[in-house]
């Protein structure tokens, strides 16, 4: 696997390195690699819809060049992502690769971006370490640590003293657990227990029973967005809500896209995250209306703004370099860029190329017959805490 991606990367370097300097191209191509089939299809659909919406709203000509979006499906499998990235760079001569619905997909592609010197815009994956894997990676989504630290602060301030954490046992889950535990302990909270559940986990019942018997003030949860619903159902079924245990977590568990399918069970869940469909800014209301108009069956979620802002970053970087597609020039243009997104103010940290943004505390409420994450507190300018802790 590693050898294959290295080979692909080498081939990519040889070809792309030879052609890029002769950059008299009239079109600039962006390769969007996302899961459009398989278990993470919903994420891919959101990413694609938002990227297309941005192009529709802002035109397809930037700095005198025509922008072309090439969408490819990796089915959520890392070996596909790396192969497709290599193909896009070699054959289609794309100037950007973007997308990356899951952490392993971004990790597998990082060496290819490095070798080909092509900017890689991570629009979804949220593990801290990703941006360290290549100097050409920029992130417009979020890191799990950002949300975890903020919800830990909030919990400590709101009379939650004892917490059990429950995370899915893979890299983003470990980030979500560590950031929360460190922060919560530093504020004087107590972690009764940290449970990690296998990623292929059919039934949460035994884990939840354990939580019930441990009698904490709150249960802190991170799961990939699809699994949140079953966890929440079983949380209610087992009567954890009635025994006074609060459910808190990162915003992945109350994903706006599927929140309505949870039913009233989800009402009252408190989470921290970077984006809510219900964010009250005019910019966001305009965004949600346009998004729903173009995609009547979807409700924009945090994945969608990652893609929307990723496209914005690409457009603005091209404007700054005056259409120059040299990877290093584009990266220099992207570092430190600031703008107003539908989610609120955000910027790219010039040192880490990671995202700096406001994190909101939200509570699930019913509004006009639909469930929304209603924001009620905000923590501005949050950087990735995992990288900050390394210094």
């Amino acid at each position: 696997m590693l050898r294959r991606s290295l080979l692909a990367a080498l081939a990519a370097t040889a070809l792309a390195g030879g052609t890029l300097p002769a950059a008299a191209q009239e079109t600039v191509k962006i390769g969007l690699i996302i899961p459009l089939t398989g278990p993470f299809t919903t994420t891919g659909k959101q990413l694609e819809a938002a990227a297309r919406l941005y192009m529709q709203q802002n035109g397809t000509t930037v700095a005198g060049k025509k922008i072309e979006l090439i969408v490819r499906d990796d089915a959520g499998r890392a070996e596909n992502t790396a192969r497709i990235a290599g193909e896009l760079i070699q054959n289609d001569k794309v100037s950007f690769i973007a997308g990356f619905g899951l952490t392993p997909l971004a990790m597998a592609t990082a060496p290819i971006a490095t070798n080909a010197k092509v900017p890689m815009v991570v629009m979804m994956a949220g593990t801290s370490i990703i941006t360290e894997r290549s100097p050409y990676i920029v992130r417009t989504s979020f890191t799990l640590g950002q949300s975890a630290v903020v919800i830990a602060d909030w919990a400590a301030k709101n009379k939650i003293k004892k917490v059990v954490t429950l995370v899915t046992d893979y890299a983003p889950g470990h980030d979500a657990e560590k950031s929360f535990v460190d922060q919560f302990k530093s504020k004087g909270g107590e972690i009764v227990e940290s449970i990690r559940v296998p990623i292929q986990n059919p039934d949460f019942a035994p884990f939840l029973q354990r939580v019930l018997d441990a009698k904490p003030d709150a249960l802190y949860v991170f799961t990939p967005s699809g699994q949140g619903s079953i966890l929440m159902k079983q949380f209610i079924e087992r009567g954890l809500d009635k025994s006074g245990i609060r459910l808190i977590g990162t915003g992945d568990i109350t994903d706006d896209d599927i929140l309505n399918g949870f039913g009233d069970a989800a009402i009252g869940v408190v989470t921290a995250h970077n984006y809510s469909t219900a964010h009250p800014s005019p910019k966001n209301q305009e965004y949600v209306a346009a998004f729903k108009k173009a995609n009547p069956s979807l409700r924009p979620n945090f994945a969608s703004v990652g893609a929307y802002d990723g496209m914005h970053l690409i457009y603005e970087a091209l404007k700054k370099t005056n259409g120059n597609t040299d990877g290093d020039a584009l990266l220099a243009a992207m570092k430190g860029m600031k703008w107003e997104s539908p989610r609120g103010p955000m910027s790219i940290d010039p040192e880490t190329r990671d995202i700096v943004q406001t994190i909101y505390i939200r509570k699930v409420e019913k509004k006009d017959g639909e469930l929304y994450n209603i924001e009620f507190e905000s923590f501005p300018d949050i950087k990735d805490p995992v990288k900050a802790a390394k210094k």
Partner: protein
Amino acid sequence: MLTILFDGIAYGMLLFVISCGLAVTLGLMNFVNLAHGAFAMLGGYCAYVLVNFYGMPFFASLPVAFLFAAMIGLLAERSLYVHFYNRSHLEQVLFTIGFVFMTSALVDYFLGSQQRFINLPSYLQGRFDFFGVGVGKYRLLIILVCALIVIVLQLILGHTRFGSRLRAAVDDQRVARGLGINVNWVFALTFAAGCGLAGLGGALGAEILSLEPHFPLKFMIYFLIVVSVGGTSSITGPFLASILLGIGDVAGKYYAPRFGGFVIYTIMIVVLVLRPQGLFTRGTSK
């Protein structure tokens, strides 16, 4: 403690209903059917569509899910499976795995890849305390329905003409044919019934196992463990194995969450090392 036992039994019962059909095809008909979970998934989605889209009551949807899965099973058996009975096991594996991928893709195409839940009536939700033991209403229902199915199955196999024909066909196919038993039809009906039970299990289990297009692959390993641990020569073997696995899985995850996922595999390895023919077989017949 008792709550864990209760949850484990409910989980085990569910595993049994879904996988007992597999015990028949794999053990009795000597056919490696990895697509068994696909029928469970189809039954689950059938109930989901009927209840959520057409407002059918949940209880009425269960027999429909059974019939639907059984019919698809019968069709598949007569049109596809029948050509593979005399092929090598490798070919059977390749065929059934391909079948799984196709059903997954079809479901994904028509109903999307999100997890689906069947709308349950409110009296089945929540739980009550029974002498200090927390009893989930829905899990109690699962135990009752499955217990009923086990009794009915046992009666059919032991006390009806069809049951004796099936047992005869399994014990010695050639002699059974010589006595005028239509072995092909006995197997076809048994296969269909097994698929139907899987479908019923899928509909019942949608709430707990989570219904999605990758259901058959996700649970294939559980079904195979039930069959390999339980042996395939009777109903009681897989039944006891399912209960053992259900309790082992739930208790393992409760008492040692870090290693909980491994408990059932450990049980399987130990059983297979000590008794390679399965835990509950009555001697070896051949």
